[in-house]
C-alpha cells in the first residue's frame, strides 16, 4: 500500500478504516488516519460502526463451543509421547515396516533415560562383535564403527546425532542386513539380543548401529 491513503471526497475509505482498526497500516498512514479521525465526525462515526460490528463478530465467534478438557489434553500428550514409535514417514524417506521395532525400542530407551553418548573407549571386557555386511555402508564416530541401516532416511545429516544404547534382537539386525558372526556361541541364536549403540537421526529413527557385546 502506498503512503497516499485512499480518500473519497476528503474522507477515509472503509478499507483504510478497517486496516487502521486491524493495525495493518504503516505507521505514517496510521498517524495520518488518526489525525483525520480526530476532527472528522463523519469518518469517526463510520469507524465506530465498523468497530462495533467487529467486536460483536468477535463475541459471536467466542460463543461458539468449546470448553477446555483436561482429558483431551492428556490424549494429545500421550499421542505425542508415542510419536517416535510411529512412523515419521510423513516427513521424508521410506517408512518400511521394519522401522517399527527400532523406533519403538529407541523411544523406550529415550523414555527410561538411558540416553547417552558412547565413550570412545569400549568398556573393558566387552568384545566387539564382528559384523559381516551385505549392502550396508559403515562409518566411524569417535573411533567406533557404525553400520548404516538400509532403511534409514538418507537425507538426514549424520552429524546431528544422538546415540542410544539398547538391546537389539539379532533377528532385527538380520533384517537390516547385518549378520552377526558368533564370537560367543549364544550371540548367534536368533532369539537373542545384543547390546548395541544405536545412532538416531533427527527424526528420532535409527540411522546406524554399532554392536557391543555385553556377555
Amino acid at each position, binding site marked *: 500500500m502506498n503512503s497516499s491513503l485512499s480518500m473519497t471526497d476528503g474522507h477515509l475509505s472503509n478499507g483504510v478504516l*478497517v486496516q487502521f482498526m486491524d493495525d*495493518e497500516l504503516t505507521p505514517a498512514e496510521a498517524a495520518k488516519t488518526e489525525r483525520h479521525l480526530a476532527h472528522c465526525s463523519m469518518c469517526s462515526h463510520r469507524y465506530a460502526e465498523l468497530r462495533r460490528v467487529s467486536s460483536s463478530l*468477535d463475541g459471536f*465467534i467466542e*460463543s*461458539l*463451543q468449546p470448553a477446555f478438557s483436561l482429558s483431551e489434553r492428556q490424549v494429545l500428550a500421550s499421542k*505425542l509421547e508415542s510419536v517416535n514409535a510411529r512412523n515419521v514417514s510423513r516427513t521424508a524417506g521410506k517408512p518400511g515396516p521394519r522401522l517399527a521395532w527400532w523406533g519403538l525400542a529407541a523411544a523406550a530407551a529415550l523414555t527410561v533415560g538411558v540416553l547417552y553418548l558412547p565413550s570412545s573407549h569400549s568398556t573393558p571386557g566387552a568384545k566387539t562383535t564382528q559384523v559381516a555386511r551385505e549392502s550396508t555402508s559403515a562409518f566411524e564416530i569417535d573411533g567406533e564403527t557404525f553400520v548404516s541401516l538400509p532403511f534409514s532416511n538418507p537425507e538426514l545429516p549424520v552429524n*546431528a546425532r544422538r546415540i542410544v544404547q539398547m538391546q537389539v534382537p539379532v533377528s532385527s539386525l538380520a533384517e537390516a542386513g547385518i549378520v552377526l558372526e558368533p564370537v560367543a556361541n549364544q550371540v548367534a541364536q536368533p532369539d537373542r539380543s545384543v547390546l548395541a549403540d544405536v545412532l538416531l537421526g533427527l527424526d528420532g529413527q535409527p540411522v546406524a548401529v554399532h554392536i557391543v557385546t555385553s556377555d
Partner: protein
Amino acid sequence: MEQADTLSLPAATWETEFLEDTSLRRIVLELYDREHLGLRRYVAFLGADSDTAWEVVQESYLRLHQHLLAAGDRTNLRAWLYRVAHNLLRNMQVSARTNRMDYLPDLAASADIRTAAMSAEEEMLASERNARFAAALDQLNPVQRECLALRTRGLKYREIGDVLNLSVSTVGEHVQRGLEKLKELL
C-alpha cells in the same frame, strides 16, 4: 555403564539437536494450551461438529510435532496451525462429500451460550442475537467468512493470506466487504 565423558558437539547443538524430543513435545503442548480453543472455534466456524473439530485440532497438533521433528520452519507456528487445520477440515469435507458450501450448518444451535451466569431472559436475548448473527454470516461468501474468522483469532492479513492462499490486499478487501455486509445486515 559408562557415562558420556566426551561431547564432541558444542553445548548449544546438544540442546537443540539431542534433547529435542522432549522439548518439542513441550512446545507443542504449550501451543495447544494457548491456541487450541481458538483453533476449535475456527474449525467449528467452518462447519465442523464438535467431534470433527476435536479430531482436526488433535491431528493438527500431531502434525505440528512432526513438522518440528523434521526441523520445519518455525517462524510462525500459529499461522501454520491454522493452515493445517483449515486444509485438514476441507479435505475431510471433500472426502465426506459434504462440501456443498453449507458452512455454518447450524451455527445458532452450536453456539453454546454460557447459561450458568445468565437469566432466562438474557439467555433468550443472547440466542436471538446469535441466530441473527448466524443468518447475517450466511449472506457472506465463504472466503469473507474465513478471513473474518481468522482475523478474529488475531491473525494478521499476511498470515490469513498464508492460510487461505490469498494476497494481503485481497485479504484486506474480503475483511472490509465482510464487515460492511455485516454492518448492513445487523
